[in-house]
């Protein structure tokens, strides 16, 4: 078995595009993904034994993803599926765990395409069974063709909420309301910048019309204030908010529901890029820490590239283009692509990113994260879901002098649970910033340490590094 030259972590659009591009130019690529099948979240596939004979109106991206997945397989990329990348050592050595053991993958180039996860926004009742993220609802519908519930309230912000509503309606659920935090006023101001992206605009318009025709009330400038229920959610209360998404005076509305789907955008998964030693900066427009990158999408660690939502949430079209650009840079780094062909292909990938930047700019402005939404939580609201630490306990620690998220963690256990600070980190940083009168970047981030995801000791006990992969890419 010849040595791997490029490791790609993440099998979503960005990772697939990077792997395919590099492999097309003769690079020996290994791709690692925690899931049993490629596609990540956006290109989530149904299980192999499932099929939809009548090809219904949901899942255009499923077909698009299928094509790219098939191409990656056909190009002979070494696949490590069901495998958790839990650490990065010596700059480019990736530690990968399966239930059978762990192996080290070393290569000249490492492409991190770890994606993003739903931004957790604490509010009263958010831990009740039946309250789930937009991503969680999408996975049920896309992968398993299953409804998350029958009477659903959708709340949060962003165009994804329209997609969730579309899937729910197509699947036969009742959407009792769609609650968008942004006011979405003066859309006409953006018309010139949206003109080159009519396909995206038309898609959005089609979703909105579908929702209207289904009789779903849509509230803009509104947030879900609380979810109520005993053993599970049975009601949701919405109310108006201001331009910063802070709850504002005005009539509350109560809906009987069995499910609340909440989507407030996404946070980049930067655990691996941190473990690799890459420099990061806080990007206020995205409300997320992202790795610092060159024009070629290389991080501050030589040979380590970061692409897609994991390097800054920008959607699937950007992820595909970034994956391509990094794949070209990797091919160049390994001497497989030089001169005029390199310039031509790189120029095309960069041109695509430039074209998309205009649309992204409008979306980011329209749905800009409103920090006031942090005011939804009261002292009793759970902040750290894993360790069950309330907002009040964290605020008390901040009041007593904790000025960094790590200090609050040490004093209260926030961030010490199994999710390793993913669910509480973003909100905690805002609480610290607010409490100290400083900015979110100054609140810091939880010190990164391996493993990046919980792995059983048994997975670390057996070193599989020198054992060959089976045909399916998973060690015996």
């Amino acid at each position: 078995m010849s040595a791997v030259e490029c490791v790609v972590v993440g099998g979503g659009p960005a990772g697939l595009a990077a792997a395919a591009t590099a492999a097309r130019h003769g690079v020996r690529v290994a791709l690692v993904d925690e899931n049993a099948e490629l596609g990540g979240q956006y290109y989530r596939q149904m299980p192999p034994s499932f099929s939809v004979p009548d090809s219904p109106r949901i899942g255009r991206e499923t077909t698009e993803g299928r094509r790219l997945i098939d191409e990656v397989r056909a190009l002979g990329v070494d696949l490590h599926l069901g495998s958790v990348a839990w650490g990065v050592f010596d700059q480019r050595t990736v530690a990968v765990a399966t239930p059978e053991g762990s192996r080290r993958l070393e290569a000249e180039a490492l492409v991190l395409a770890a994606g993003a996860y739903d931004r957790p926004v604490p509010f009263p009742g958010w831990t009740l069974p039946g309250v789930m993220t937009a991503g969680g609802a999408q996975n049920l519908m896309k992968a398993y063709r299953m409804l998350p519930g029958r009477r659903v309230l959708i709340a949060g912000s962003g165009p994804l909420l329209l997609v969730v509503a579309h899937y729910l309606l197509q699947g036969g659920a009742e959407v009792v309301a769609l609650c968008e935090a942004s006011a979405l006023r003066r859309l006409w101001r953006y018309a010139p910048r949206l003109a080159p992206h009519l396909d995206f605009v038309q898609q959005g318009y089609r979703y909105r019309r579908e929702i209207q025709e289904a009789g779903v009330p849509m509230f803009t400038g509104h947030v879900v204030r609380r979810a109520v229920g005993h053993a599970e959610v049975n009601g949701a209360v919405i109310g108006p908010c201001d331009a910063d998404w802070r709850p504002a005076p005005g009539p509350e509305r109560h809906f009987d529901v069995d499910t609340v789907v909440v989507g407030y955008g996404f946070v980049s998964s930067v655990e691996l890029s941190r473990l690799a030693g890459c420099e990061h900066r806080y990007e206020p427009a995205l409300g997320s820490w992202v790795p610092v990158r060159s024009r070629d999408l290389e991080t501050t660690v030589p040979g380590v590239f970061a692409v897609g939502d994991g390097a800054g949430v920008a959607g699937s079209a950007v992820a595909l283009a970034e994956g391509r650009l990094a794949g070209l840079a990797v091919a160049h780094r390994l001497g497989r692509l030089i001169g005029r062909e390199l310039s031509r292909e790189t120029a095309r990938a960069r041109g695509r990113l430039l074209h998309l930047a205009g649309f992204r700019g409008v979306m980011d402005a329209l749905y800009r994260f409103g920090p006031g939404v942090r005011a939804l939580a009261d002292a009793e609201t759970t902040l750290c879901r894993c360790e069950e630490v309330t907002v009040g306990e964290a605020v008390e620690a901040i009041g007593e002098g904790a000025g960094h998220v790590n200090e609050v963690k040490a004093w209260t256990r926030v961030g010490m649970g199994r999710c390793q600070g993913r669910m509480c980190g973003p909100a905690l940083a805002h609480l610290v910033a607010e409490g100290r009168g400083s900015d979110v970047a100054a609140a810091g981030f939880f010190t990164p340490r391996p493993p990046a995801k919980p792995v059983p000791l048994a997975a670390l006990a057996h070193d599989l590094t020198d054992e060959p992969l089976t045909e399916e890419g998973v060690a015996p």
Partner: protein
Amino acid sequence: MIQGDLRMVGVVRGSAVRISVDGESIPAHEGESVAAAMLAAGRRFTRWSARAGEPRGYFCGMGVCQDCLVVVDGRPNVRACMTPVREGLTVDTQRGLGEWPVAP
């Protein structure tokens, strides 16, 4: 309160299997996750939290939030959303941090 099967119509699914959830046999299809099979049967509740004994369930659906933890075939802390079903699999509601089976 969820009634009935939440599976969408018009889909060819994997072969039918049965799993048990807190002793009750529920239908599933090969290829589904434990979380999906439980949710389809209207069971959104996976565990009682350790400190306050709060009910928790499926939240992020992608293996990140660690809230859908259940006891599978006697082993605790298993993410229901990342675990495929198979015939005869047993799932139990997890209480707190769970209990590990003691080696004989």
